[in-house]
């Protein structure tokens, strides 16, 4: 049921007040009365009324005065004036002061009801208008908010976005798209697409998405290459927007993603796989070759020659095992970065033990070992197994690439915030142009002296990875024919 209309009747004549009340209550309205403007105004302040019926001439506060105040409180209230001086002047004056209509005294109930009903209708319309206006304002505000939200989202996306209408005009884009396509100026909305975008690949994908054959797809994804100077690879996804009912194309949305670095990673991975394949095949084919030659007699009939061949085959088999171990170690280092088991370590023991263990390998060359490592060193935070691996690789290189009667010198000492560990040899040394490559995977310096030395080409890559995962650095100095010195610097965690 509808809310009853609330009416306030203000008149100093009790007869009129009560008469009006009776008539209006009988019409189903809720009616309050007041005997003068001041009392009436207080009531308007405290309670909501739809209509005000007010006498113009009253003691304390007259109708004109009261109407002025009431309008400030509720501008939509319908005010009807009752006047004894039913002249045009007073009526006009009252309407000037905001009255909706007037009822001249004396009046019949029907006169009053007719005016009141018109007033109620007007009140209803006024309220509705106000509500609609408020709703509209709210909607406009929401739209503005949504728009700025959308704008912010689209503009902050790392992926580029292009929106194209059915006339093939560019209507929306974001800064990422401008950046990726390297459009030097901001395009104007509504420009023809080929005028703005010069990349043939992108235009081709968009054209393909619009073609009749594309109707079966929801979107098309392709890679496009940007020519130099950009030299980027973009993944383009074009979705056609269709009207659900008519099935008509409304336009399309193209998203662009820069996958240049992913492609590079992919290429690195392929190269790595190719190198591993090569490195694994080389020893196996050497062993296979020796065995075949042995079994077929292809190498002649000198038993000494065959003995040498078998010895080489054995060395290559051992090197292959080493390579497999190094590869496992290598992949472990690659995947372990997050779960390394670091503890506070005094690595003096590790260094000394490593050298002791490896000394045997230097016997055939009569190497001398000089160890200058104090019994206790400041503590570093490190993975023990990896530290053993690190010094094993460095010291065994120092032995492997040494000369007869050479020396291997290992020293460790604190240097400010770091621990400096030096592994030096008096071996064959490394040519300056080879030095930048020695930490690369599978790189091996090729020179006549090392032709028969087996190695995996991974030892120093592993060393570098370990040092870097411990926030240290490794430096190398070398003089061909004199020797090589590796210096590992690891951060000190705690002094004793």
């Amino acid at each position, binding site marked *: 049921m509808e809310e009853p209309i609330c009416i306030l009747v203000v008149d100093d004549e009790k007869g009129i007040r009560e008469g009006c009340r009776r008539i209006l209550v009988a019409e189903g309205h809720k009616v309050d009365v007041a005997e003068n403007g001041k009392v009436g105004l207080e009531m308007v302040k405290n309670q909501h009324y739809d209509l005000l019926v007010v006498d113009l001439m009253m003691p304390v506060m007259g109708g004109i005065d009261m109407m002025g105040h009431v309008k400030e409180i509720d501008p939509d209230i319908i005010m009807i004036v009752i006047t004894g001086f039913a002249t045009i002047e007073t009526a006009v004056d009252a309407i000037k002061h905001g009255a909706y209509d007037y009822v001249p005294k004396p009046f019949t109930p029907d006169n009053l009801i007719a005016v009141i009903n018109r007033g109620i209708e007007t009140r209803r319309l006024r309220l509705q208008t106000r509500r609609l206006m408020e709703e509209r304002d709210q909607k406009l505000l929401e739209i503005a908010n949504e728009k700025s939200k959308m704008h912010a989202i689209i503009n902050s996306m790392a992926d580029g976005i292009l929106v194209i209408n059915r006339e093939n005009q560019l209507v929306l884009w974001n800064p990422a798209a401008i950046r990726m396509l390297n459009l030097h100026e901001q395009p104007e909305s509504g420009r023809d697409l080929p005028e703005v975008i010069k990349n043939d690949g992108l235009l081709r994908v968009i054209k393909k998405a619009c073609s009749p054959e594309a109707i079966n797809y929801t979107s098309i994804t392709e890679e496009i290459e940007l020519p130099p100077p950009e030299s980027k690879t973009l993944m383009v996804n074009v979705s056609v927007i269709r009207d659900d009912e008519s099935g008509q194309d409304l336009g399309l949305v193209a998203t662009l993603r820069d996958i240049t670095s992913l492609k590079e990673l992919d290429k690195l991975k392929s190269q790595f796989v190719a190198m591993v394949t090569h490195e694994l095949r080389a020893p196996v084919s050497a062993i296979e070759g020796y065995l075949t030659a042995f079994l077929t007699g292809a*190498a002649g009939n000198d038993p000494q020659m065959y003995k040498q061949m078998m010895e080489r085959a054995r060395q290559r088999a051992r090197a292959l095992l080493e390579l497999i171990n190094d590869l496992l170690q290598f992949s472990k280092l690659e995947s372990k970065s997050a779960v390394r088991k670091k503890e506070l370590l005094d690595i003096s023991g590790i260094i000394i033990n490593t050298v002791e263990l490896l000394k045997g390998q230097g016997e055939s060359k009569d190497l001398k070992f000089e160890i200058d490592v104090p019994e206790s060193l400041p503590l570093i935070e490190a993975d023990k197994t990896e530290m053993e691996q690190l010094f094993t690789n460095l010291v065994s290189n120092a032995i492997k690439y040494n000369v007869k009667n050479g020396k291997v010198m290992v020293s460790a000492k604190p240097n400010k915030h770091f621990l400096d560990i030096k592994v030096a040899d008096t071996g064959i040394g490394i040519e300056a142009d080879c030095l930048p490559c020695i930490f690369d995977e599978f790189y091996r310096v090729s020179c006549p002296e090392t032709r028969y030395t087996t190695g995996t080409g991974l030892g120093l890559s592993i060393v570098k990875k370990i040092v870097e995962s411990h926030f240290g650095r490794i430096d190398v100095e070398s003089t061909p024919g004199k020797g090589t010195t590796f210096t590992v610097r690891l951060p000190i965690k705690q002094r004793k």
Partner: protein
Amino acid sequence: MSKKTKILLVDNDVDFIDLNKTVLENSGFEVAVAYAGREVMDKVKFEKPDLIVLDLMMEKHDTGFGVARALKADPVYKDIPILMLTAVGSETGMDFSQELDGYWMKTDDYANKPLSPEELIKRINELLERNKKA
């Protein structure tokens, strides 16, 4: 007695060279060797081989392609047939195909490693035959 056919073996794998040098010598060839791409030009000038067996991927910055290109660009040496060997096939995603290389001649050949000594000798002889006719 006719002069022996001279083969230049180029590979960074010392065992490949040692083994095949022995095998080829036992089969009546004369053999010269080079262990790195950068040694090849000097060896070719000095040894004047009748055929070169060239490993494709010797070192990162020193591939057989570079050597082959240099040889094929040289008017004096461009006719020496090359048997290119590789241990890395297309299955790794790296393309090493002679079709990609404009310098490749139809007088040359291409083989995958590992390659048995008999197969190597067979390929060398085939290539020498083809070049005799050409």
